[in-house]
Each structure stands twice: as structure tokens, then as C-alpha cells.
């Protein structure tokens, strides 16, 4: 199956990815981005979303977890990442194993786990 990539950004940052073959879409706020995702999910296999937007529409993105495609990935914006992607991975780890193992012996408060 042939796939296509899209990127949803809140500013012009998405533009640079257009030059490498992704389709860039702009969304002003989370509501617009959520509408955009529902629309794009049918046509694109991989959708990158700025993490600021992604953090505000968790449940929209979670609805696509069960299927293999589309893949929706949060990426940082120009101001730097807000840690949403990492937080997502930690939450997966907590759900599956009951604890966060991504930090090599440190828990989410940054303290050392007693082992």
C-alpha cells in the first residue's frame, strides 16, 4: 500500500517539511486540528502533529490507536518540545507494566527508585 505523510502545525514551522514531500496543514487551535485529523485520517497514513496541539486533543488521537494506520505522532515546535511525546510513552509504560521504566531507575518525579 502506498502511503502519504501530512504535518499539522500551528505556525509556519510546518513549511520546512513541505520541501521534503509532506503535505503541510495549518491549524490555529486544537478544535481546528481535531477536525483536520478526522478528515486527514482517511487519506494519510502518517500524520505529524505539533505537540502543543496534540496535548490538547488526546482523546481524538487515542481513537486511532487500535488500528495500524494512520499513525499520529506528536513532534516539537520551534519553541522546543513540551515533553508531550515522552509523557505519552511513559503513560504507555505505566498502563502496560504498572510502572514507568523509560527513565532508567528514575521515576517521573526524578527521584531514584529504591531497587
Amino acid at each position, binding site marked *: 500500500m502506498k502511503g502519504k505523510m501530512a504535518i499539522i502545525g500551528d505556525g509556519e514551522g510546518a513549511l520546512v517539511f*513541505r*520541501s*521534503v514531500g509532506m503535505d503541510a496543514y495549518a491549524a490555529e487551535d486544537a478544535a481546528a486540528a481535531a477536525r483536520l485529523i478526522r478528515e486527514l485520517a482517511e487519506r494519510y497514513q502518517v500524520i505529524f502533529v505539533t505537540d502543543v496541539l496534540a496535548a490538547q486533543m488526546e482523546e481524538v488521537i487515542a481513537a486511532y490507536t487500535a488500528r*495500524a494506520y494512520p*499513525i499520529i*505522532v506528536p*513532534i516539537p515546535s520551534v519553541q522546543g518540545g513540551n515533553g508531550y511525546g515522552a509523557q505519552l510513552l511513559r503513560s504507555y*509504560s505505566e498502563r*502496560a507494566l504498572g510502572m514507568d521504566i523509560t527513565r532508567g531507575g528514575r521515576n517521573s518525579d526524578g527521584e531514584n527508585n529504591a531497587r
Partner: protein
Amino acid sequence: MARINVNPTRMELKRLKARLKTAQRGHKLLKDKTDEMVRRFSVMVRETMRLHDEVEAEVVQVLRQFSLARGSMSKKEIELVFSMPSVSLTLECTTANVLNLEVPKLHLEETRSEELYPYSFAEVTSEADYAVAAAGKLVSRLLLLAEKEKATAMLAEEIERSKRRVNALEYVMIPDLEETIRYISQKLEENERASLTRLMKVKSMLEERGT
């Protein structure tokens, strides 16, 4: 523990015993599957986290580079320059099977045009060149991350689901079946004892009448 509401008959007993056997077998298999999934997940989630941190840093770098480039050009120019893709990427999307779970598998085929840059050098600054070049290199890593993140998410969900199933079998279904089986066999034994005593009583009554 709730007993299943069935008639205490030999038929029912046989049926329940078969069900118990199936449930125990299923429980063992599911538990093994969950254990293996957990093992793979713990490897995968660490790997994904590492990749995630690396890629995130790279993306921020590319975006910073791009905003530098943007600063030195007018908005119109930049729109023009970046709206033409330099590489046409063909993304091959298939699925791989991880423990009976369909996870996405991406394969990137780049068909580069003659030069990497979608514009003439006269038009733009060197900052833009760097940004585009870096973005081009980043794509394959981004896709790898996308694939891994999705697989991790799917595996996490599947582990949760199968853990719930294992627990339901272990703490509800199997004890219920065992209790019902015990109840039926006790009931049957009791019936047997009752009929035996009845026979003995009848016999002794007959003997009394005979003498």
C-alpha cells in the same frame, strides 16, 4: 464466589469439567502470551524513548534553522521557495505481525530529483539550504519513530486487554467452575446416600413384615 446456576446432574458435571479444562488451558496460554508481550514491550519502550529524545532534538534543530532562514527572507518568498517538494517520497505501508498484533511497517523510497534543493541558489540564503538538507535527512528517522511509537502504543493496549482477560479467567471463571463442580458432585453423592438408606430401610421393613 458465585456458583453457576445449573441442574446438579451427571450430564452437567461432565460438561462443566470439560469447560474447566478449557479455561485452565486458555489461562495458561494467555498468561504465557502476556509474559512474552511484557518482555518485548519493556525492550521496545526503552528503545522508542531513546529514539524519541534524539529525533525530538533534531526536529527542534531543523525548525530553528528554518526560522533563521525565514528571518532573512520575506514571507512571500519563503512560501514560494518551500512549497515545491525537492524529493518525491514514496512511502510503502505494510503491516508486520508481532504476537498476532498487526503493527505498522513503513518503508521509505526516495526518488530524488537532480538536485536536492527545490529552488535556485540565487533566490535564497544558505540558511534555507541547511534547513532543507537537514529536514531531508530527518524524514527517515521521523518515520522510524512513528512506526515504533505506534507499535508501542498498540502493544501497551494489547497487554492491558490480555491482562484483564487472564485475571478474569484466574479469579472469576476458574473458581466459579470449580465451586459448581464441587457442588454438583456433593449433591450427587448425597442423592446416592439417600437412595442407599432408603433401600436399607425398605429392606428392613420387608423383613419385619415377613417375620
